[in-house]
């Protein structure tokens, strides 16, 4: 395991992402709500660049007690990132596909040393 330098935390704005290349491997590093998350950039569907697309809040459909729908809404805090090839949508905090959590991107640890951010790969 080696630590790969990503960048300085002070220059990595919330909502941004970076793609780190290690040989032929690629890792997407996101900063969301102050935390860093790192995942394989190869989508588990057809191999698309899973971390290079849109980030968007999870869509929810709350049901009332009588089972009627309250319609579609964006979740207040849960965020997803979306593979731009076909729309495979992954949970920002876990890397799991939002429809089938068994489909899960490889997750990498992110460590901070002062202002410097590293991915452990």
């Amino acid at each position, binding site marked *: 395991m080696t630590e790969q330098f990503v960048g300085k935390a002070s220059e990595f704005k919330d909502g*941004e992402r970076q793609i780190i290349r290690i040989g032929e491997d690629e890792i997407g590093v996101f900063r969301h709500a102050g935390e860093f998350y790192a995942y394989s950039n190869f989508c588990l569907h*057809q191999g698309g660049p899973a971390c290079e697309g*849109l980030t968007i*809040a999870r869509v929810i459909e709350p049901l009332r007690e009588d089972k009627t729908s309250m319609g579609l809404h964006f979740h207040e805090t849960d965020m997803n990132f979306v593979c731009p090839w076909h729309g495979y949508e992954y949970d920002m905090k876990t890397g799991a596909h939002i429809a089938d959590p068994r489909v899960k991107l490889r997750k990498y640890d992110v460590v901070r040393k002062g202002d410097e951010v590293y991915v452990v790969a």
Partner: protein
Amino acid sequence: MDLIADRGRRVTVEELNTSKLLAHAAKQVKDRKFDDVLIVDTDAHHYENENFAEILPFMENEVLKQLALAARAKGGRGNVMPSGFGYQDMGGRVTRYPLRTSEKTDPSRQRDAQLGDRWMNAMGVDYSCLFPTGMLNIGLHPQKEMEFELCWAYARWVTEKALPDCNGRMYTMLCLPFSDPEGSLRMVETFGDRKGVGGFMITSVREKMQVSDNAYMKVYRAIEERGLAVAFHSGPNWGSNTFQSCNRFLSAHALGFSWFNILHCTNWVVNGMGERFPKLPVLWIESGLAWIPFLMQRLDHEYMLRPSECPVLKKKPSDYMRDMFYSSQPMEIQDMDALQTTFRMINAETQLLYASDYPHWDFDLPSTIYDLPFLTDKARHNILGGTAHKIFKLPPRNEAQKANLIKYGNYVGG
């Protein structure tokens, strides 16, 4: 470039570069040595509406042409082509839709040809059958005269302007104005011998069409006589009476693409079109594959009970269905055993043709075929390009491809 996400939040993404977007596909090409495999994409698209300024002047009727050009003029006052409801781009999640206009190309060469080169090279595709996008709804146009004019103008533009700029790597199956049998015949007679025309396409999205109507026999005969193919290209119609019951695009899309080909395939088979035109290659495009075993079983069951309704048939409906060809995309790779059964039931080794549907949102890479664990090498090569090579007579692009075509019994020259 910014995309709109939740609550108007803006997310910055790089502007579109197809080669870069598909860099991972290019890695698959290298890893799997696709350069040695002739890969023919039976269904790819461009956005012909972006070329209407060049296409519409090819319309013949001056009054209809003026109406169309006026509708497209600045401050346009109408739509030329029927358009469907839907969210193909998933709200921008599939970024190539909102970013498409940001991609830079060389103004001295046809833009669609350059974009085609980029994604074909990235995917390892040697040839693509180029289809329009919006024109897939042409069967919903209320005026058959306008349907003919638009199909005619597109056919002239694509054969005279677009394909000649594609270095021979794109061919087409021209969209027929099927509401007008005489016009369809004229299209076949006029364009059937043109370079790059591999056949003719009937848009399946039609609310009322009987493919076995006597009026069409001369059209099929003309296509068959020329050694060309006929394809039914499916699509959704969320606005139709049936699909207005769907409250999500997913539902209308999943059902619609299969439904319209199920409908026309049923009429084709039950009316014995396979007996009438045994040498006509018939392709069913963009309905996935899961519908085919369903329809085979359904029709065989009813045929055994009611054969008197189909006296032209000399074998079971499923046997005629196994004589026809199917494009692979969007392939339902969910239950591998079910998919393997589907491949067995349709004789995929000889009847299935790889298709990407690129750049549409649910495109499939060649690896979706190549990586299937149950395929023989022969089946892989046949499906990816060998069978299409025989139907469309597309020459191999290098000696390794030629050797593989010969090895698997597909080589027909070129």
